[in-house]
């Protein structure tokens, strides 16, 4: 098992009621697996997860991206800066 830190922003933070949570995943877990885990563990996150991108190490990451123990993965709802 690996442990990753999940950062939640904007609508995702509000839905989860927290800015960051720790998640345990299998050794070979991907970003997609982490999103699937969050959907089950935090049902309120479901709608916003479907519209969100992920970032790992402060870079956008696709669902196929592998996660390692200690990684920080961010859930990024549609951005609206500028």
């Amino acid at each position, binding site marked *: 098992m690996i442990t990753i830190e999940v*950062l939640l*922003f*904007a*609508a995702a*933070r509000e839905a989860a009621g927290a800015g960051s949570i720790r998640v345990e995943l299998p050794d070979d877990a991907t*970003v*997609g697996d*982490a*999103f699937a885990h969050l959907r089950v563990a935090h049902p309120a996150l479901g709608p916003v*997860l479907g*519209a*969100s*991108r*992920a*970032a790992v190490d*402060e*870079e*956008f*990451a*696709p*669902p*196929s991206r592998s996660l390692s123990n200690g990684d920080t993965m*961010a859930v*990024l*709802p*549609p*951005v*609206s*800066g*500028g």
Partner: protein
Amino acid sequence: MEPFGVTAEPLDVQALAAFIADSGAGAIVTFLGVSRESSNDANQVERPVETLWYEAYGPMALRKLREIGAETTSRFDIRGVACWHRTGEVAIGEASVAIAVSAPHRGDAFDACRFVIEQIKTSLPVWKRERFADGEEWVEGYGGEAGSARA
């Protein structure tokens, strides 16, 4: 000063313009994104905005601004580019984003400045929240960009 940044303080576009001034530049273009007194809600109804905030994933936003700067420099014939984004509460009429670009010729200065704001709109991890008389909401944003996959 730093050419790229994320700050809770008011932005100073004049300082950015001074920073990227260059004796080989014939044109300096600046852009200010300013918070407006009204906004369209999800149903495209115009409503007066009372307050608005920006939340950022700070370290990633800074990294992204630097990436956008490097990409802009590689795409256009420019001498300098600088960009700051503000976070926290932003009063009506104040700037949420400031960009300055210098270039030998005006076409590149305009095109590069426009490129920076378009990149920010689609890929900077920053979120705007507006409060109206009857509630508040996260502004509907850009979900994806070419080449990125949704998780």
